[in-house]
């Protein structure tokens, strides 16, 4: 441990390279590979054909074996480069394989069969991106539906979250009334009641309201988030009360005060909450899994998990769809990371 402490205080380049400097860079570079590597591998794999995916050892880039249509054969045949007994190399097409011997034909002379040991041939391969992995699920599966369901849930839940929580935060920060502290404590206390604890009775309530197998059943239980009320209220407390008093003098209604003064001034906090809400709702899994049992209602996350749990996993589609599912979150990460990191460092919410 004392060594650990030592390295914290060593500065690079004081007395050349200290071991802690090396450790730092090993850790950082290692972290770079471990954190990004899996995602990069996923994206690379998602462009491979099913045959290339089943191959071991896998290739880094997506390759396919070249095929050629040859007179006298219905299907296109795989092309191989063969080392002939005289040492020359020739490109032949494989008709069939029996044990370790492959029967091949030359594209120029389709009638003459040549027998070649499989050790003496290598497939002719070219790099090719299997974009059908991406295009086919849109037509073959309900993928468009899942995408739409996810977008609908995310956008609607976020809008309702912003409105409902900002109204509550306004009441809790700018009005004096009996039970205010109680309401605040009640909201904070619900932090202690995560979904996994109340899912059984919540399911019965959602069913009783007729929201089982309904996207609203996914949306409504999530919108009144205590963290949302909390960060908005903290922010609204910093807005001076004089602004509100002045507006009242000018005969503004309370609703106008909320809508035209408080909300615009709370914009930074609303933005943070909106970003968090989008990521939360887009990533939600357990609750949609419980509420949605009809295929056409699945969100992306539920659809992906169901398809990946099947006996014959169609990995080429799953990988491509996983990449699509990642896209919005990666965009948030690239463009809005600053808001999120300051949000977490400031309040510890996630």
């Amino acid at each position: 441990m004392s060594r650990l402490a030592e390295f914290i205080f060593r500065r690079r380049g004081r007395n050349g390279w200290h071991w802690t400097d090396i450790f730092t860079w090993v850790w950082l570079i290692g972290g770079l590979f471990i954190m990004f590597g899996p995602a990069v591998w996923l994206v690379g794999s998602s462009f491979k054909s099913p045959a290339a995916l089943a191959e071991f050892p896998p290739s880094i880039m997506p390759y396919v074996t070249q095929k050629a249509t040859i007179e006298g054969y219905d299907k296109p045949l795989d092309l191989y480069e063969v080392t002939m007994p005289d040492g020359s190399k020739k490109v032949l097409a494989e008709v069939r394989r029996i044990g370790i011997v492959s029967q091949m034909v030359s594209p120029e002379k389709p009638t003459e069969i040549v027998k070649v040991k499989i050790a003496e041939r290598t497939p002719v391969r070219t790099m090719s991106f299997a974009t059908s992995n991406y295009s086919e699920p849109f037509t073959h599966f309900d993928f468009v539906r899942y995408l739409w369901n996810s977008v609908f849930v995310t956008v609607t839940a976020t809008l309702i979250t912003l409105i409902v929580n900002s109204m509550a935060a306004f009441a809790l920060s700018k009005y004096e009334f009996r039970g205010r502290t109680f309401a605040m404590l009640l909201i904070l206390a619900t932090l202690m009641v995560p979904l996994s604890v109340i899912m059984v009775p919540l399911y019965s309530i959602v069913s009783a309201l007729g929201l089982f197998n309904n996207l609203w059943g996914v949306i409504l239980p999530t919108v009144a988030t205590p963290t949302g009320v909390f960060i908005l209220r903290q922010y609204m407390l910093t807005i001076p009360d004089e602004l509100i008093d002045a507006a009242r003098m000018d005969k503004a209604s309370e609703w106008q005060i909320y809508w035209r003064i408080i909300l615009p001034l709370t914009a930074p906090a609303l933005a943070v909450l909106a970003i968090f809400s989008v990521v939360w709702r887009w990533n939600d899994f357990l609750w949609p899994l419980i509420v949605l049992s009809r295929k056409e209602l699945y969100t992306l996350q539920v659809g992906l998990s169901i398809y990946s749990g099947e006996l014959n996993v169609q990995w080429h589609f799953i990988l491509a769809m996983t990449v699509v599912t990642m896209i919005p979150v990666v965009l948030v990460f690239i463009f809005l990371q600053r808001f999120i990191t300051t949000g977490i460092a400031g309040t510890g919410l996630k």
Partner: protein
Amino acid sequence: MKADVPKGSGSGLGETAMVPVRLAMAAIDAPLRFVQRRLGIGGMATFFLLPNMLIFGIFVLLPFFINFAYSMTGGTALFLPDRSFVGGDQYARLFDCANYADPNSCAEDTFWTAVGNTAWFVVLQVTLMILFSLVTALILNRDLMARSFWRAVFFFPVLLSPVVVGLIWKWILQRQGLLNFGLYGLGFEPYTWLNDRNWSFAATVGVSIWAHMGFYTLILLAGLQAIPKDLYEAAEMDGTRPARAFWRITLPLLMPNLLVVIVLVLIRAVQIFDEVYVLTGGGPGTSTLYITQYIYETGFATQLRNPGLAAAASILMGGVLVVLTLVQLGLGRKGEKKGARK
């Protein structure tokens, strides 16, 4: 007064898109003025609070209380009035054990398997998570080139959905996966890691650390950066050895953050579900079956579903979480006081 109200910032397009919203808000204003005349200004607070409280009440508080009633009923009926009262039978069933260390001796053996697995998972995952995120935070707190880039590197997986995380690693750990590819290069035979009881358990620990470590690193880094630099300068001038400075300055001043992080990691680890469900599905066998999956399957997924039993188990888990949260709130308050004194 009008001039004081800031106009919504944004492009012309955004302004146009806001027009219907503005009109709608103006349209609501008239009826709300009527409400305001009836309730008075103070009464409007109730109006603003109402939607939130309604949703809270229906979807959080009501289920919370119903859960207790639910756990004292039996049968497979969904709605509480249709269910038969069984008193403490469900709890008795959960605790019906000849030997608590051996799940096979229990009436509800999967419950105890899940509890045991979760306990091991929590111990391992929390220890390693704290270790990794602390080391990463200390490294990121150094005088680094491109620090925000490196911070982003470790933070990146935090935003990924658990399903995506599960699938990424399922793909890497499978037989033709990247891990076997790497080991093959070193001369090892390919192995199906997720079919092995111990390796799949290790995988759930490792993957959950991979996915969440950036989040805790960030909190710890914020704590490290709040430590005044002049403390270290003074220590250096006094000839304090760096190791001593770490134990005497860094660790004590980081302690409030560290404690909060420990409790947060604990709370999340107890509830682990999503990534594991996608990665291993609780298997092979029951080797990665954790408590939330037990509740989910008992309550919803199996043929012989028993919502009452699931409710009882969820209340037990809730009890553990409440204790942990209270500890966290207590620690948070302590941390705040410390900050204020500074």
